[in-house]
């Protein structure tokens, strides 16, 4: 471990903490969110340093990109609903009583973490041993889709649940049409095909290299967000069942696969070794589609105008 | 067969008057008054001795008719017939109530005469007592009510004393039921027992020191009540004294006390008769004198260790005679009842002081009432507590109290 790398890591760790503190403490909300997006990108760098490329991709696409987009959109809507001065609402006085308490708790936590550092135990050996039978070569995707596929099923359902909850709350009337500026329009025409291609590649590469359904879905979602920003809207007849189908296809597909496997007498989500790879790809593609659709609709906030109130 | 008939007869002369006493029944019977007394008269004439034992009534009581009791029964019949005639002369508004009460008292009187058990005697004495109280109150005026109140106070106290005496007797003889209650009592408890009995019956009979109600009643009660006074409560009380006090055990102390009291009563009656010879008061002094004389006689008999049997037959006759004497006097001059009691005998200052005593007593009890136990645990409701559901306020004191409680219990264990 050369001195340079240790230096970089220390610097990156400190940078992370400093950015987070600034994001929370700065009085202006917009600057806070921008700082938060920068924090997300720095986090992605940290994941790379920790040799976790998949996570880095996910963090960059979802953690920084999409969450940032959602936050900015929400801030815009917030200013339109309650244009209170952003300055008034931050509570300047950082009361020190809780601070002391929390620092103590943090110190305790740090001690526990340090006590674990010398010989942390992990499951690398078992994963490597079973990787052959998992149907994919990328260990993270193997864990994600095969070994702990059940978690992923629940996770995709969480996303669907979030969307349903948002729809059931009917936040506020749809935004008025924003005329797209010429620069945005040109940029859009260039970027859309590239984004779709990148998403497809990520999805395909997930089997053997860092990538996978979530990262691809996020990129595709970003493309959708860009389109929405530029004022594109789905044709009315598409916003009914087809949109709903696109959203539910991911979790629905996964569940159907699970039922199919169950009916053939196998325990829950046990892929037959031969078909494992194909099944995983099928599930990933469907998941990508629905994740993209969900994230885009979440960004738009309310239910698409044409959709009859469910 | 005849015993059965006689037994039923005995029981009938008690129950029949009570039945006729009911106003509804009384109204529908022809000649109700005579009809009510008929069975008693019939029995008096036909049988000379009869007994009836009822083991399952109260504590196994029984009824008995013998020569001595026939005297008393005759006296009672005569008295009640006369009282009936007097009552018939009262204003019609009061008559139904008076006749009912007369019949109740008659049943009580006959019951006491025939009772062969102390408890049976006690039962019928209450019947007689409360019936006579009603008769006194029927007399009307404030004076009659005051006299009645005096009488009932004496009555309640006497009943209580008799109750204690009976307890003592039953306890001493270990007999839980005192069928065949014999009088073998010894030692100092006998003195206590006879003291209780003596005091009780003096109260009921209104002998000299406790005669407040007798003189008051004689002056203010309605004519039938005054007629019955001597023959009813007074004579029956003395009969009780004779029945309850252990005959022949030679209770010297009790005997002396009776003699002393009897003599004193006699002297007092004579003195008063001389001091205020108005005709209206004469019956009062006569009753007191008779009472004193009879008590003197009892004292004599009690003190003498022997010779008791001879007098056994004589006493009831004497009593019957004593009962009739004042009645004769009263029959001739039925004075109108005095409205109020101005110049009562000296001992009735107690009656004057009694209202003041009553007020003091009431104030004491009022004080006690204000000392009521603290209001019960206030019902824990939102209305009593300012329910606001606002922010988390400071720790309420209840938590501290409960912590203390927990601590104490912890130490305890």
């Amino acid at each position: 471990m050369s001195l340079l790398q240790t230096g970089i890591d220390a610097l990156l760790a400190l940078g992370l903490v400093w950015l987070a503190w600034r994001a929370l403490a700065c009085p202006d909300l917009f600057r806070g969110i921008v700082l938060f997006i920068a924090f997300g990108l720095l986090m992605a760098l940290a994941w790379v340093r920790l040799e976790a490329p998949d996570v880095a991709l996910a963090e960059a696409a979802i953690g920084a990109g999409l969450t940032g987009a959602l936050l900015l959109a929400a801030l815009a809507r917030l200013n339109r609903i309650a244009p209170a001065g952003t300055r008034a609402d931050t509570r300047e006085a950082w009361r020190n009583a809780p601070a002391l308490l929390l620092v103590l708790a943090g110190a305790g936590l740090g001690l526990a973490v340090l006590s674990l550092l010398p010989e942390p135990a992990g499951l690398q050996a078992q994963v490597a041993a079973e990787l052959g039978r998992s149907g994919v070569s990328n260990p993270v995707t193997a864990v994600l889709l095969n070994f702990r596929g059940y978690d992923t099923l629940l996770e995709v359902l969480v996303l669907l649940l979030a969307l349903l909850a948002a729809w059931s709350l009917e936040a506020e009337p749809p935004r008025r049409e924003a005329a797209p500026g010429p620069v945005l329009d040109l940029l859009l025409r260039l970027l859309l095909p590239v984004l779709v291609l990148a998403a497809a590649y990520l999805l395909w590469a997930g089997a053997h290299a860092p990538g996978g359904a979530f990262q691809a879905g996020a990129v595709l979602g970003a493309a959708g967000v860009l389109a929405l920003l530029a004022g594109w809207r789905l044709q009315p007849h598409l916003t009914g069942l087809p949109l709903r189908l696109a959203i539910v296809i991911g979790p629905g597909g996964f569940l159907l696969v699970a039922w199919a496997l169950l009916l053939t007498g196998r325990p829950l989500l046990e892929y037959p070794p031969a078909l494992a790879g194909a099944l995983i790809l099928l599930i990933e593609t469907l998941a990508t589609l629905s994740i993209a659709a969900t994230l885009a609709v979440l960004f738009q906030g309310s239910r698409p105008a044409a959709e009859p109130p469910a | 067969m005849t015993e059965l008939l006689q037994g039923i007869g005995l029981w009938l002369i008690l129950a029949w008057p009570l039945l006729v006493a009911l106003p509804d029944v009384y109204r529908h019977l022809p000649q109700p008054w005579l009809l009510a007394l008929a069975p008693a008269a019939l029995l008096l004439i036909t049988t000379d001795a009869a007994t009836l034992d009822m083991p399952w009534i109260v504590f196994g009581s029984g009824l008995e008719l013998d020569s001595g009791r026939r005297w008393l029964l005759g006296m009672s019949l005569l008295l009640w017939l006369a009282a009936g005639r007097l009552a018939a002369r009262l204003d019609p508004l009061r008559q139904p109530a008076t006749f009912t009460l007369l019949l109740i008292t008659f049943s009580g009187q006959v019951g006491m005469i025939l009772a062969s058990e102390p408890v049976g005697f006690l039962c019928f004495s209450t019947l007689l007592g409360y019936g006579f109280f009603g008769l006194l109150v029927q007399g009307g005026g404030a004076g009659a009510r005051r006299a009645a109140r005096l009488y009932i106070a004496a009555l309640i106290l006497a009943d209580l004393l008799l109750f204690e005496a009976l307890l003592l007797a039953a306890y001493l003889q270990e007999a839980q039921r005192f069928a065949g209650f014999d009088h073998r009592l010894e030692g100092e408890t006998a003195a206590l027992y006879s003291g209780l009995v003596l005091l009780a019956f003096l109260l009921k009979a209104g002998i000299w020191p406790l005669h407040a109600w007798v003189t008051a009643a004689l002056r203010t009660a309605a004519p039938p009540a005054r007629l019955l006074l001597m023959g009813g409560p007074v004579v029956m009380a003395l009969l009780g004294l004779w029945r309850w006090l252990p005959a022949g055990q030679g209770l010297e102390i009790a005997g002396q006390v009776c003699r002393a009291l009897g003599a004193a009563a006699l002297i007092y009656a004579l003195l008063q008769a001389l001091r205020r010879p108005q005709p209206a008061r004469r019956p009062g002094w006569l009753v007191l004198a008779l009472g004193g004389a009879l008590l003197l006689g009892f004292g004599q008999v009690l003190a003498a260790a022997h010779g008791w049997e001879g007098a056994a037959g004589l006493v009831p006759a004497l009593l019957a005679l004593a009962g009739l004497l004042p009645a004769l006097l009263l029959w001739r001059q039925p004075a109108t009842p005095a409205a109020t009691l101005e110049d009562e005998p000296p001992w009735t200052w107690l009656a004057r002081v009694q209202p003041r005593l009553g007020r003091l007593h009431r104030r004491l009890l009022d004080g006690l009432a204000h000392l009521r136990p603290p209001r019960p645990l206030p019902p824990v409701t939102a209305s009593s507590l300012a329910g606001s559901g606002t922010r988390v306020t400071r720790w309420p004191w209840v938590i501290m109290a409960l912590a203390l409680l927990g601590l104490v219990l912890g130490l305890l264990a």
Partner: protein
Amino acid sequence: MSPGSWILLAVLASSLLPGLVIFAIAERRVALRTGLNLLGAVSKLLLVGWMLWGVAHGHAFELRLALLPGLDFVLRAGPLALLFVTLSSALWLLTTLYAIGYLEGSPHRSRFFGFFSLCVTASVGVALAGNLLTFLLFYELLTLSTYPLVVHRGTEAARRAGQSYLAYTLTGGALLLAGTLWLYSLAGTLEFTATGFVHGLVDDHRGALILIFWLLIAGVGVKAALVPLHGWLPQAMVAPAPVSALLHAVAVVKAGAFGIVRIVYEVYGVELAADLGVALPLAALAAITILYGSLRALYQDDLKRRLAFSTVSQVSYIALGVAIAGPIATIGGLVHLVHQGLMKITLFFCAGNLAETVHIHRISEMDGVGRRMPWTMGAFTLAAFGMIGLPPVAGFVSKWYLGLGAMQAGQDWVVLVLAGSSLLNAAYFLPILHRAWFRAPAGNGFAPAVGGRETGWLLLWPPVITAAMSLGAGLLAFIPFSPLEWVQFIARQEFIGYD
């Protein structure tokens, strides 16, 4: 489930099932409801009669259901239990008749009679309980089923009376629960046995046993209205007359007194209670309650409140009889349980009649009411004489045995207490009689009797019957199956030495 246990279930069901069905009946179905009520009451009376006959001939009736590990739900019909069951079921029949007459045309009768039947089930359950857990179960069920009756009228005063009633009785229930559990953790069993089941624990748990005793007594003392815990009884008089008649004068209060009897005889045993030195304080507490109740009764102008305070004092006779360790005193206490029930229910019926027909609630308004309602006031007078303790009526018998028992146990001060309380009883009952009979009615008199009879026959016959029963219990005390005979049968079992 031996045949003996079926009959126990039948006794409970005979009031539970009609009760539940009545809840569902619509308000206007009067005939059906009355029929069900009477069917339940009569069937219960017959079953109890059969059990009386059985127990007199030595049959055992017991029902045991598994409830908790190591603790069963036990119903056992011993002679002591049957004393209370007979009283409850007999008076339930009469009170049902009275309630039907009393509540003519008033609203929510289905709800009333439903809870009424539940109450009787609970009181019968309290009587038949075979161990302390079952006793506790029915004891709390009694509280819960009487609450809706106390607040039946739906006025604010009724609600507040209900709240105070619950505050007292639930606290009592909690104390009883604490005592029962502590006893269970020490003794390992809760079965009622003839002379108590805690003898084995005396040497090493003496202090705990004393504390447990006071916890249990406080628990049941609330319902038995011992002095500091009696506050709820006068306030509960806001309930309609049949409720205050059966419940607050007989079922609920007797459940408390019966609890004391069970605890002193069948949990501790009288000798142990005396040895632990708790019998005398209990007797003292009962004596204080007797005198205090009578004193407070002197100053109540409201008739039902005076009767309530008189109940407070009268029920403590039972506690007094039980606390004096001796067979005769026990007989006195237990027989008073029945006699007081008969006499007090007559008084409350009459009070209800007065309130319902001539709208009298206060004693000051009772002048000359004897003329207007002779039969009711006649019953009232008879019961009042009984309460004072005049010979022919039932009260005399129980006071007699209490006095005798006290003297036999060497507690002479009890005789004084009895005498004092008789005086006080006379002091607060005789003025009522005096007003009723010998005073002219004030103002323009009372509402005239309609159709010749003083009040509805449903309202008139129950008090007359109970008055006759109290006179009979006193006069015919020694016939077989009379309360006194049955109590002597119990005493023979409870005290081995007694003949």
